[in-house]
């Protein structure tokens, strides 16, 4: 974590450590550049832009010029669109304007790590719902859930897109590929998935119920009841 405000780095570091990560700190651009020399061994970099000594963007540029592909998430109070574009053009993987929610940072960081294969999730998870990445086996509340091949394919698309809607057209393209079926096929598929979730709900434990929510005009998303983090 490259951050010059102690208040932020201390508490953010604490939160990330509680989440099971190992965090190292650099408080200025020069120190960050030293830490990020080849062979640094970091899985991801949280980078502030306004740093003493050396600007965050130049640290990032140097890093990319060395051919280092470590995922970089920019955290900054400079939130204008041109700044954002500049950061992403220079090789940042994501951009989170301050102030941000801790849960959002954690989620984005997880997505980054996963996308870069730094953390190979064996399991895709949404609340009590789990899917083995390799086998495609699905468990709800710890109980196996029998799904057809297409249902599993649709569920995988939804699980791979946490906190974002997947449009009907997109699901159709992913699941039915080049079959000559209409969009209603997607509706039927989702309907069946929901039914299977509901019938598996007779779980003894008071676990949050996961549902496939339809967002009008936007598509589908796996959601947990209000107030629950996904």
């Amino acid at each position, binding site marked *: 974590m490259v951050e010059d405000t102690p208040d932020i780095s201390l508490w953010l570091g604490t939160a990330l450590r509680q989440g099971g990560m190992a965090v190292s700190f650099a408080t200025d651009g020069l120190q960050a550049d030293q830490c990020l020399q080849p062979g640094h061994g970091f899985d991801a970099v949280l980078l502030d832009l306004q740093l003493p000594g050396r600007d965050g963007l130049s640290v990032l540029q140097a890093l990319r010029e060395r051919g280092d592909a470590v995922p970089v998430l920019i955290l900054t109070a400079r939130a*204008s*669109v041109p700044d954002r574009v500049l950061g992403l053009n220079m090789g940042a993987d994501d951009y989170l304007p301050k*102030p941000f929610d801790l849960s959002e940072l954690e989620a984005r960081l997880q997505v980054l790590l996963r996308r870069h294969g730094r953390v190979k999730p064996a399991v895709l998870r949404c609340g009590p719902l789990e899917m083995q990445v390799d086998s495609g086996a699905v468990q709800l509340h710890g109980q196996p859930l029998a799904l057809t091949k297409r249902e599993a394919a649709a569920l995988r698309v939804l699980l791979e897109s946490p*906190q*974002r*809607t997947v449009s009907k057209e997109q699901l159709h393209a992913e699941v039915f590929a080049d079959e000559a079926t209409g969009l209603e096929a997607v509706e039927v598929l989702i309907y069946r998935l929901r039914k299977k979730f509901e019938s598996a709900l007779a779980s003894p434990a008071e676990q949050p119920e996961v549902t496939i*929510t339809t*967002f*009008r*005009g*936007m598509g589908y*998303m796996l*959601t947990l009841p*209000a*107030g629950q983090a996904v």
Partner: protein
Amino acid sequence: MPANRSKAVASLRRRLLSWILWPLMGLIGVNAWVGYGNAVQAANEAYDRSLYLAARTLAEELEWRDGRLQLDVLKAAGYLFENHTGSRLFYKVTSVGGAWLAGDAALPSAPVRDKSAVKYFALVQFDDGVYLNQPVRLAELTHVMEEAGPAEALIKITVAETMEARQQLIQHILWDTLGSQGLLLLAAALLVVWGVQRGIRPLEAFRQQLAHKADDDFSPIQPPDLPRELRPLIETLNSYLERLGRLIDIRKRFLDNAAHQLRTPLTALKTQLALAQRNAEPEQAQALMSAARQTTDDAVRLTEQLLAMTRVEHAREMHSPQTVDVVALAKRVTQEHLMRAHQLGDDLGLELQVAQCEVHGVDLLLHEALSNLIDNAIHHGPAGTQITVRVGAHWFEVEDDGPGIAPEHQAHVFERFYRAAPSGLSGSGLGLAIVKEIASQHGAQVSVRSPVHGGRGTAIRLSWA
């Protein structure tokens, strides 16, 4: 600024002076040149005439006696020299054929010209020549001797005069002309400078008045004795001052309001945290913590909106408009608010009536406007509110089925810090003001419909004509 302005005044003065003085100088110069030329010609003619008279006198003193030419030199000299004090005279008498008869033999003859330059008598010729290395004026008179035999009846008398007297006179004329015309020019210049100074004085007084104005004084300026031509300028300036004053007043009030608005959540936050620290019971501390979190969220929202307001106000200088597809924009913005709406139990949806809606504008600002409308609907509606983002041909709107806005509030909801919401519900009072500002920058109309149906609901729409 003041230095700049006085420079402008100086340059106006200089310009006026140069417009008047240069042509005046030219005219006076031409006048002097013409006058000088005339005077010189008149002087020359007078001198030529007296030279002719000298030749004539000489001729009359000539006698043909005993086959020889006789000249009463003393008498002739008396005539010759009485009028020619300033210069020396020479003479020569020759036959028509050029044979020397009397006087200075080396004196050149005036060439015979068909067309005489001087309109005297055909019998006299004038010319400029050189004698004894001095420039001289020559007059050659052809004279008929009455007593002589026919062979010698015609003789030529050449009289030469050195130029000192003429040159003196010409110089005199020159200095005279230059002196008088110079004085005229000087007097004219002084008059012009004085006039221009006087003419510009009200302007200078006006400048002084403006320069001594206090920074926060936007009262109209009333300079005395201002020329009529400048009055529209002053009126324009005064109306500008008035508008500026009003604008700054609004700014000041905005800042006061903003300061108050920002301090409020921060004060609440401090209190909540202090209480949480003091409370040993975990349950109460937990409640305080979540309250503090809520307060922080409010403060963040307020800060964002204050910054957004400033950004929007300066957007014109910072962003150039391009074609924006509102459909794509609506999808993006709705997606961004989806999770929060869902977590609060609201039903946020998108309804597209067209496949594409292109408008000319700044993407960032339209994003801000739509985002504010959705945010407003989420914020002010109770949990479970149905919110619909709708895009049609040349318009987009956000409709909710919340409590709606009472008619008496509808006219004011776009004013800064105006809050129609019941007290107790936090809000910055800026969200819709930002929307309004963005709409006006985009030439779009903002309209409110409330209630939408069943006595509930609000729809706020941005539409392009």
